[in-house]
């Protein structure tokens, strides 16, 4: 089972809906004890960094995540704010400490050219920088839905953790990976085909290769059905 952490930030049903669409069981939970039973952990989120970290702390999730992800090595996928939490700190409305699993800070997007708007909202192609299992089988420059005003700026020493980036008047951190810890700035749960493929890839990491074959056929059929109607120039 995959646990989706609910820290009161609002709607998490879209993440659960996306896992349902690929035939995966996911549990939305605000109880840190449920992480014990989970094979993989998803931390989604939109909202303010400081308030959200405070909620995670209050619900004992910071300690539980450290134990389960760092201690026991359970795969982690942070979406949007869930990626940003990996940073040492965030500069969103003041300075707030994060989980500190990656050396870097969350900073406001600041494109010099005003035609690049903030928030960065919409579908953007990402350039895959380092091989990452989450991108297996996706198109060379997959397109995802973004909605954010801040992003993770990593220290030079962590640059090898960058798995993809997009351009929005500046280079924007789109995804990172440290071993079994993954973070995506975009929203795979709102990114139709490639988003579902990415989540499928995450569940492969979670469950390992044996379950792989079985799951592939299921999601393959799902995707093929939805792509069946239209002809695609790409």
């Amino acid at each position: 089972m995959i646990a989706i952490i609910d820290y009161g930030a609002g709607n998490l049903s879209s993440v659960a809906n996306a896992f349902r669409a690929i035939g995966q069981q996911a549990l939305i939970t605000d109880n840190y004890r449920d992480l014990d039973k989970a094979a993989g952990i998803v931390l989604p989120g939109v909202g303010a960094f400081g308030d959200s970290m405070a909620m995670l702390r209050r619900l004992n999730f910071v300690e539980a995540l450290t134990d389960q992800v760092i201690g026991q090595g359970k795969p982690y996928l942070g979406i949007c704010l869930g990626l940003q939490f990996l940073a040492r700190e965030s500069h969103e409305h003041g300075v707030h400490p994060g989980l500190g699993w990656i050396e870097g800070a969350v900073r406001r997007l600041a494109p010099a050219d005003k035609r690049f708007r903030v928030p960065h909202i919409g579908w953007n192609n990402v350039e895959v920088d380092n091989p990452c299992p989450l991108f297996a089988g996706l198109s060379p420059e997959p397109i995802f839905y973004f909605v954010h005003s801040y992003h993770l700026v990593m220290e030079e020493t962590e640059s090898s953790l960058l798995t993809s980036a997009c351009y929005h008047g500046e280079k924007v951190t789109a995804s990172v990976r440290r071993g079994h810890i993954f973070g995506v700035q975009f929203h795979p749960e709102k990114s139709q085909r490639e988003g579902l493929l990415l989540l499928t890839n995450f569940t492969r990491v979670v469950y390992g290769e044996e379950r792989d074959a079985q799951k592939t056929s299921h999601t393959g059929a799902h995707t093929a059905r939805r792509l069946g109607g239209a002809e695609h120039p790409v």
Partner: protein
Amino acid sequence: MLSKRIIPCLDVRDGRTTKGIKFKNNVDIGDPVAMARHYYEAGADELVFYDITASSDRRDIMIEVVRQVAAAILIPFSVGGGIRNLQDMRAVLLAGAEKVSVNTAAMLEPNLIAAGARDFGSQCIVLGMDVKKVASSEAIPSGYEMVIHGGRTPMGIDALWWAQEAERLGAGEICLNSIDADGTQAGYELTLTRMISAAVSIPVIASGGAGTPEHLAEVLTTGRADAALIASMVHYGTYSIQEIKDYLQQRGIPVRLLW
């Protein structure tokens, strides 16, 4: 590169879509969930729902529609119409919409934008603007005035000023509708769209007047819009979203072609 978004707009009254929408396949044309699924599969980048239900005690029907739409499509969508307070916003967002659109209520109580941005984040708050061209005056220096009731009631608020004020208050996006162009299918109001787009740094969705793919190309280039709302031209089956996107791509406008 960030794609320009193509966004079909659906009017919903008492839980049913209102326009006489024609499709060649077997879509139940009155069912907003089936319509959402149709446009999702057809390549829409996002959807907008406007709840035009007159009676507020039937609002729960819309919430149920939102919940079902959220389970049926894996792209973002927003809900507008009748959003009066934080409670209304919360209900729509918790039911699964990415964004809420506020219009009249925000003009009457601008702090609604700030409060919504504080509680849910700017990215959730879309400012809906209905705008009419008027003679430039001291009160309306830009020559574009905010209106309500489908354009029948002028608000005495300058559209340019209001767009900038809403951005300052924390709106994450503007959906800019020209009352003059709305329903004409004769093209978007390019001057208005360009003026507002240049004046704010948040994304602007152009609305009103789309009739041909060329109209979209104009508003996404000359009009500097980030996204284009469409209705009749796809609801009546005149164009498919694929056709519109193919045209835009040929014109060198970045669009999402794989879905």
